[in-house]
């Protein structure tokens, strides 16, 4: 199990180089980060995964894009849309993470979608940026949505991942701070530990249903 920040956006999306983010992640207690549009590797003892964020794309184009990235070993995240879109995305092979649930429609992630996510081992992203930098109703809405997701997670057991979505080293938070922030949405320490290693769950292929002995 490696403690992972499931999404950071280094330069040119943000103001920090990927090396600096890796250095900061090491100081903050992480062992791995998923960095957007950066080649995978290891920097300062931190494992780097390539992250691909797909948003505002029709389903057909999205499927083609995912097919192109099939052999790149990148972590593919798709921005959540309405309920039909989310169900289609979850059943698409090659999608690892459904992100942006907090800003999607209230009914975009229901019990049916939750069961599908559990069956297809697609993780739901807990993006902490609205809780860190958001204020007022925006933060309240995010906390409410995440609490709702936690209820579904307890029931159906789909994977969760935690991301800071940091565009700067100043937006990154330590493991302890993230554990504290997650307590606001009803996650206890075992839940947070499980979510930190959620990337392993979605990137490792599932055990075969039938094993030849």
């Amino acid at each position, binding site marked *: 199990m490696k403690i992972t920040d499931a999404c950071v956006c280094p*330069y040119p999306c943000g103001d920090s180089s990927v090396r600096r983010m890796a250095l900061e992640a090491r100081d903050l207690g992480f062992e791995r980060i998923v960095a957007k549009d950066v080649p995978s590797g290891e920097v300062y003892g931190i494992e780097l995964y390539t992250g691909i964020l797909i948003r505002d794309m029709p389903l057909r184009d999205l499927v083609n894009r995912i097919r192109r990235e099939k052999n790149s070993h990148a972590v593919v995240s798709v921005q959540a849309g309405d309920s039909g879109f989310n169900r289609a995305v979850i059943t698409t092979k090659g999608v690892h993470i459904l992100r942006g649930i907090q800003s999607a429609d209230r009914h975009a992630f229901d019990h049916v979608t939750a069961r599908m996510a559990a069956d297809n081992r697609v993780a739901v992203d807990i993006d902490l940026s609205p809780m860190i*930098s958001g204020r007022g109703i925006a933060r309240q809405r995010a906390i409410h949505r995440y609490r709702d997701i936690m209820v579904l997670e307890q029931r159906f057991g789909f994977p969760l991942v935690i991301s800071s979505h940091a565009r700067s080293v100043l937006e990154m938070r330590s493991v302890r701070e993230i554990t504290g922030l997650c307590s606001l949405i009803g996650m206890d320490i075992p839940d947070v530990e499980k979510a930190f290693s959620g990337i392993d769950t979605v990137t490792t292929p599932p055990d075969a249903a039938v094993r030849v002995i």
Partner: protein
Amino acid sequence: MGTRPPTLREKRRYLLVALEPAGTAVDQKDLYYALSDATTQLWGDATAAVITPAVVASEGQFFIIRCRRGTEHELAIALSTITTCRDTRIALRMVAASGTIESLRERIRCRMSPGPDQLAPGECIFDKKTFQLSQCNGQKVDVIEKGFKNTNRLFLTREDMEEL
């Protein structure tokens, strides 16, 4: 009103936090306002009144923050939601918690680096833009974009610099 005897005083805890980015000048009072705002926004007036946060001391990039004993966890969460102080982007990293200010001062003395590495004042070019070297602490190098309008700060490492 006279000072209460020690057994009747309310118990307090002190948190040591480090301010980032290094070299940012932040006034103690401004930080108090940012802290008070963050605590109230997150926990509401009633809990903020119980926490009673206060910035009691500062040494370089370190600040000592006071709260009521038992509310350190809530204060630490509120601290992690501070992103700006008077329009300056900052981050507060919690270093330690203690029952006395003196023990935190010792921690500061232990952690105080010999000082930011001296960089030759100069310019560098990164991504076809000119930057002024600002801070250097170990591997970490901060640069500031030159110009009249945009003075963005970039966070790089020495290895990034070698590639410039």
